[in-house]
């Protein structure tokens, strides 16, 4: 079965795995992990240039934005104004319109502040941004985000960086049923099988950062995530068997001696 293309805001991407670029030991390690993940989209953050260290290397020196799509995020923003300011600056760096909105509500659990997130999505969309939205796994909120113009719904699996895996599969499935927008699990995955589960639930993609960057071998984990996403997607498309509490022999009884 040939899979349909992974499209976000009318742009096609080869890989359904999006990788974050934070928390790596070095830019070099980050670049290697991205390569082995096969991702063609990476998330990046906007921060002040260190003006006292002029020789400091930059992310863009290691990851070429002409080859890999940069997806600027608003990590660390707690209200719509900060998020909009950040993304306007990101757009100015190189004309990026496809962005990941992340408006947080609490420093401890890093859950999204959904009222500000909804407001920001609407304002940014009106400004011409294509907004992929980090959100909680609430189907009603997901619907409202879609109504104000989000180009992708990105519910959390669990708190950012927690590595807990998908905590509420039912809600993810409900969101999957109600939306035709790209559904991408963002945050909280811990290992490759978590990415497969997300894909088996019918998600269009996953975004992974900490589970790769903080693995003992990030480059190998990046590769594991790549195959987990491919595997989970194929499994989903293949149509699983109905679960049954009784056994069903794989070997025929006919001809038994």
């Amino acid at each position, binding site marked *: 079965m040939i899979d349909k293309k992974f499209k976000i805001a009318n742009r096609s991407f080869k890989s359904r795995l999006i990788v*974050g*670029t*934070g*928390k*790596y030991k070095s*830019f070099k390690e*980050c670049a290697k992990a991205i390569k082995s993940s096969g991702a063609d989209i990476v*998330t*990046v*953050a*906007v*921060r*002040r*240039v260190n*003006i*006292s260290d*002029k020789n400091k290397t*930059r*992310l*863009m020196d290691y990851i070429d934005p002409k080859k890999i799509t*940069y997806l*600027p*995020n608003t*990590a660390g923003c707690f209200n719509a104004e900060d998020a909009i*300011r950040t993304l*306007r*600056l*990101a757009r*100015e*760096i*190189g004309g990026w319109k496809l962005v990941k909105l992340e408006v947080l509500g609490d420093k401890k659990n890093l859950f999204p502040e959904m009222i500000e997130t909804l407001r920001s999505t609407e304002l940014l969309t009106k400004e011409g941004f294509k907004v992929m939205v980090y959100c909680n796994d609430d189907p009603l909120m997901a619907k409202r985000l879609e109504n104000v113009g989000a180009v992708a719904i990105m519910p959390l699996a669990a708190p*950012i*960086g927690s590595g807990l895996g998908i905590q509420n599969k039912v809600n993810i499935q409900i969101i999957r049923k109600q939306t035709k927008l790209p559904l991408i699990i963002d*945050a909280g995955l811990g290992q490759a099988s978590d990415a497969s589960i997300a894909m088996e639930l019918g998600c269009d993609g996953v*975004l992974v*950062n*900490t589970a790769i960057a903080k693995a003992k071998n990030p480059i190998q984990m990046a590769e594991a995530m790549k195959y987990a996403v491919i595997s989970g997607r194929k499994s989903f498309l293949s149509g699983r068997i109905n679960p049954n509490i009784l056994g069903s022999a794989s070997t025929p009884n006919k001809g038994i001696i």
Partner: protein
Amino acid sequence: MKIKNKIKITVNGKQMHVIPKFSLNSLITKLKIPLNKIAIELNKKIIDKKKISKIYLQNEDKIEIVHFIGGG
């Protein structure tokens, strides 16, 4: 404090003193920052990078220069 014949500006939260008629372009050059990898805000307004040689810094200006770093 105003140093004689100099104006005070704040760049990324740090105070600097520059001569009057100092352009934003001169500042970026002085800091050796590659223009194609950054965005600039002057007093909370985003600046068109093509116009920075015509923008002269004023006393108490606040400049933010940002770039992309690793993030999730």
